[in-house]
C-alpha cells in the first residue's frame, strides 16, 4: 500500500550496495587489513613446517632469555632457550584449528536445529528451545576445565564441546531468521507453486540466512581462539604443543626478567581475534548499508559535483501567486531552487532538481507524483528531516522569511512542532509502543511550550476530543496497540496541531487507512485547517485526496515540478502532458466491467 519512496533511500542506492558486496567490503580499509591478517595466518598455518627457522621445542641453553633482534633467535629466546619466533609460527595451526572445530560444530548443531525449529515450529521447537536455553545457562569455561581434567588435554575435543556450548546463539539466530523468512510472501508463493518443504528450505531459507550465519561463525571463531588461549594460559593445553596461550604463561612467569616476551604472543592473539571480529563487523555494516559519514572535504566535493553536473531545470513562473495573498512580505513557506542529491559509490543521483514552490497562510497545497518524483524528499527537507547522507546542494527553504536550511539545529527544533507540524504516513510506526498515548502527547507538548504537566494533560485531552475521539480519557491512558490505525492517525494529528503550528506538513496521511476512515481523516484535516487558518502542504499519490482537500496542486516528476496550479483548473484543463497521462490512468470514472458473456462490449 505504500507507494512513496522512503526518505533514506534515494532511488537505486540499495541496488548499488547489494550488487557490489565484495567491492564495497574491500573499500573499507579495516576490513581489507583484517582479511589480509587472516589470510596470512592461514597461509602460515599451512606452510609452517617449511618456514620454521628452528624446531619449536629445540632448546639452546645459551640463548635462554636472549633479547630480540640480537641473536639467531630473531625475536629472542624464552626461559627454556627456545626460539620465540618458531613457537609463534608453530602455534598458528592449532589456534586456527581450534577456531575451525568450534565454528563447524556450532554451525552444524545450531543451524540444523534452528532450521527445523524455525520452519516447522511445533513440538520440536518447544523442546529444542528449552534444551538450548539450558545449555546457554551452563557456564561453558568451567565445563571445559572439568573436561580437560577428565579426558586429558585434547584441544579438538575441548573445542568441539565448546562449539556445542555456544551453539545456542547460532540456534536462536537461525530460528528467528527462518521464522521471518517462512512468513515471506515468496515462500508462500513457493508453497503455492507446489514445492515441498525440504525444497523450500534448501532453495529459499538457506539462501536468506547464509550471510548472518557466516558472520556469526566468524565471530565465534575469534572467540574460540581467545577461549583456547585462555585455557592454555591456565595450563590446561596439550603439553609439548606450542601455543600462544602457553607462550603467554611462560612469559608471564618470566615477567621480571624479560617482560618483552609477553608482547609477541599477545600481538599474535590480538591480531587474529581482532581480525575475525572486524571482518564480521565489516560484512554486517556492508549488508545493513550502515552509512559512513564522509569527510567535510568529500562532502564539499560532492556538492560541487551536484551543482556542476545537474542542469537545473527552470521551474520558475510555475507558481502563480494565489489571489488574496498578503501584499506585504512573502508567503508562509517559500522553497526556491531546491536541489537535493545522494552520492553512492561516487555516483551522484539528483532526486530534487531545482524546484520552487510556495504555500500561503490558509492554503492547502498538494504535491502529487509517482515514486521517485522527489515529493517526499522535498517535504523532508522543509522539515529538516533529510537523512544524513542527503546532499542539499542549493536553494533555500524559508518559513516566514527565515531560512530553515542554514538554521542551527537547536533553533530548528524550536520551530518544528511550534511553527511547523508533521503528520506521517504510517500512524502506528510513529507512536512508541512502550508509552501510553497520553504520555507521548504530553511529552510533545511540553517539549514545545513551557507549561505544567497538568496544563499539558488538559491540552492533550482537549485536543483528543477535538479530533473526534469519543472517550479521550480512555485513549489518553491506552497504549498504541490498543487503538485502531484510524484512531492512531487522529492522535498524531492532535499532537501535531496542539501547539498551534502555522504550517502543517502531511506525508500521505491517509494512504495506510481504510477508505471510510480516510474520508473522515480528510474531513478532520479540512476542519482544523479552517479553524486555525494554517498553511497545509500535503504529499500524496492519490488524485482523489487532492480533489477532496486541496486548493492548489503541484505535480512532480523525476525531481522537477511539471505543473502547478489551482485544483479546479489542473483537473479540468491539465497543461502538461504528464499530468494528463496521470489523470488518464485514474480508474474512478472508467465503466465497470460487464458480466461474463457480455464481454464483447468491453474494451
Amino acid at each position, binding site marked *: *500500500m505504500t507507494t512513496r519512496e522512503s526518505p533514506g533511500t534515494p532511488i537505486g542506492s540499495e541496488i548499488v550496495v547489494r550488487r557490489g558486496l565484495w567491492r564495497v567490503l574491500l573499500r573499507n580499509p579495516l576490513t581489507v587489513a583484517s582479511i589480509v591478517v587472516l589470510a596470512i595466518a592461514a597461509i602460515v598455518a599451512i606452510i609452517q613446517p617449511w618456514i620454521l627457522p628452528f624446531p619449536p621445542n629445540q632448546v639452546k641453553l645459551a640463548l635462554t632469555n636472549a633479547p630480540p633482534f640480537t641473536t639467531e633467535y630473531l625475536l629472542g629466546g624464552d626461559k627454556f632457550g627456545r626460539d620465540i619466533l618458531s613457537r609463534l609460527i608453530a602455534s598458528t595451526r592449532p589456534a586456527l584449528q581450534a577456531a575451525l572445530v568450534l565454528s563447524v560444530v556450532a554451525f552444524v548443531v545450531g543451524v540444523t536445529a534452528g532450521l527445523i525449529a524455525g520452519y516447522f515450529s511445533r513440538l520440536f521447537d518447544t523442546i529444542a528451545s528449552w534444551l538450548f536455553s539450558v545449555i546457554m545457562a551452563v557456564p561453558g569455561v568451567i565445563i571445559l576445565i572439568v573436561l580437560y581434567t577428565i579426558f586429558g588435554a585434547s584441544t579438538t575435543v575441548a573445542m568441539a564441546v565448546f562449539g556445542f556450548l555456544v551453539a545456542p546463539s547460532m540456534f536462536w539466530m537461525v530460528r528467528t531468521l527462518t521464522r521471518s523468512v517462512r512468513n515471506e510472501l515468496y515462500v508462500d508463493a513457493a508453497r503455492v507453486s507446489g514445492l515441498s518443504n525440504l525444497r523450500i528450505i534448501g532453495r529459499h531459507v538457506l539462501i536468506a540466512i547464509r550471510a548472518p550465519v557466516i558472520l556469526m561463525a566468524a565471530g565465534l571463531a575469534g572467540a574460540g581462539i581467545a577461549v583456547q588461549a585462555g585455557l592454555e594460559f591456565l595450563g590446561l593445553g596439550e603439553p609439548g604443543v606450542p601455543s600462544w596461550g602457553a607462550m603467554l604463561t611462560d612469559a608471564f612467569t618470566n615477567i621480571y626478567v624479560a617482560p618483552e616476551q609477553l608482547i609477541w604472543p599477545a600481538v599474535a592473539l590480538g591480531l587474529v581475534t581482532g581480525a575475525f571480529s572486524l571482518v564480521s563487523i565489516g560484512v554486517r555494516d556492508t549488508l545493513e548499508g550502515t552509512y559512513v559519514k564522509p569527510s567535510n572535504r568529500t562532502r564539499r566535493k560532492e556538492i560541487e559535483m551536484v551543482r556542476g553536473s545537474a542542469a537545473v531545470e527552470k521551474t520558475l513562473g510555475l507558481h502563480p501567486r494565489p489571489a488574496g495573498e498578503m501584499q506585504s512580505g512573502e508567503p508562509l513557506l517559500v522553497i526556491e531552487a531546491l536541489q537535493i542529491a545522494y552520492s553512492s559509490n561516487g555516483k551522484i543521483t539528483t532526486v530534487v532538481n531545482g524546484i520552487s514552490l510556495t504555500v500561503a497562510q490558509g492554503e492547502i497545497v498538494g504535491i502529487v507524483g509517482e515514486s521517485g518524483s522527489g515529493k517526499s524528499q522535498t517535504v523532508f527537507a522543509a522539515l529538516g528531516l533529510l537523512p544524513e547522507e542527503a546532499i542539499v546542494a542549493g536553494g533555500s527553504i524559508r518559513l516566514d522569511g527565515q531560512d530553515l536550511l542554514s538554521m542551527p539545529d537547536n533553533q530548528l527544533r524550536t520551530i518544528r512542532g511550534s511553527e511547523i507540524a508533521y503528520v506521517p504516513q504510517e500512524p502506528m510506526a510513529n507512536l512508541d509502543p512502550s508509552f501510553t498515548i497520553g504520555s507521548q502527547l504530553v511529552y510533545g507538548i511540553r517539549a514545545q511550550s513551557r507549561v505544567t504537566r497538568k496544563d499539558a494533560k488538559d491540552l492533550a485531552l482537549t485536543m483528543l476530543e477535538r479530533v*473526534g475521539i469519543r472517550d479521550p480519557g480512555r485513549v489518553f491512558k491506552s497504549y498504541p496497540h490498543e487503538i485502531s490505525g484510524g484512531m492512531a492517525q487522529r492522535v498524531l494529528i492532535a499532537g501535531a496541531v496542539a501547539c498551534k503550528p502555522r504550517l502543517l506538513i502531511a506525508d500521505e496521511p491517509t494512504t495506510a487507512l*481504510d477508505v471510510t476512515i480516510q474520508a473522515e481523516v480528510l474531513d478532520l484535516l479540512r476542519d482544523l485547517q479552517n479553524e486555525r487558518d494554517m498553511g497545509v502542504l500535503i504529499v500524496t499519490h492519490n488524485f482523489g485526496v487532492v480533489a477532496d482537500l486541496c486548493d492548489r496542486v503541484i505535480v512532480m516528476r523525476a525531481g522537477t515540478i511539471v505543473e502547478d496550479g489551482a485544483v479546479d483548473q489542473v483537473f479540468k484543463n491539465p497543461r502538461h502532458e504528464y499530468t494528463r497521462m*496521470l489523470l488518464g490512468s485514474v480508474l474512478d470514472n472508467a465503466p465497470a*466491467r460487464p458480466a461474463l458473456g457480455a464481454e464483447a462490449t468491453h474494451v
Partner: protein
Amino acid sequence: MSELFRGDDVRVTYGRGRHANEVLKGVTIAIAPGETLGLVGESGSGKTTFGRALLGLVPLSGGSMSFDGEDITRLAPRARRRLAKDVQVVFQDPYTSLNPSMTTRDILIEPLIAQGITKSIASAKVKALLDRVDMPSDALHRYPREFSGGQRQRIAIARALALDPRLIVCDEPVSALDLSTQQRVLDLLIELQERTGVAYLFISHDLSVVRHVSHRVAVMYKGEIVEQGPAVQVTERPEHPYTKRLWAANLVADPEEQARRRGMRHPTPEEL
C-alpha cells in the same frame, strides 16, 4: 453457470480457546471459468484470509471448498502440490513476493521443476512466459532488485502463469504500484484472461480497481459477504448500507464530484 471454484460456508479461526478469533464467518462464493470475481473489503475484513484459505495456506475451521467438482477442503500435501498446477497466486507486494537472491529464470523455472517438468522443456517455456508478460528476454539473468515495481509484478504474474493455471488468486496485485504502472498491469491481467480463459479471484481494497477488472463483485465486511452481484450493479446500485457507505467514502479525482460526495457523507466516528 458452471463452477470452477466453490466455497461453501467457509470458516477460518485464528488462535484457539479463549483467544479464538473467527475471521471468516461462513463465506459462500463461486467463481466460473474465465471469470473475475472481485473481493472488496477494508483491512481486517478477512478478504486476504479467504484468498489464503483458497490457496491452502490457512486451514479451514468449517465449511468446504471444491475445485472443478473435486473437494479440496482438506488436502494431503501431495494432492495440494498437484493442485498447484491449477491454482496460482499473485501477491500484493512485488518486493517481497520474489526471492531477492534468485534470478528471474530461477524464479520462473521453480514451479515447472516442482511439477516434474524437465529442465530443457522448462527453459524453453520460461522464455515464452516472459514474452507473454511483455518483458524482454534479457531479464532472465537479472535479479528482482534490478526491476521496477511494475516489472517485478510482471515477473510474479509470469510465475503464476507458468503452469497454465485455471484460477489465479490476485491479492492486491496493483496497490503497491504507481498509478500509471497500475493501469498497465491491470490491462495485462485482463488481456491474459481474454487470451487464456483463466479465472481470477481479485482481492482489493480499491473500489475503482475492482470495478474495472471484475465481472462480479463480492463485498466483505467483518468476515462475511454482505453483498455480491454483477460489477455494475454492486458498484452503481449498491443495496447493503455498508456497500453504500464504502462507495460514498471512495475518493474520486474530480473536485466538483468530491465536493458533492463530501456533502453526502456524514462524519461517523464508527471506530470508537
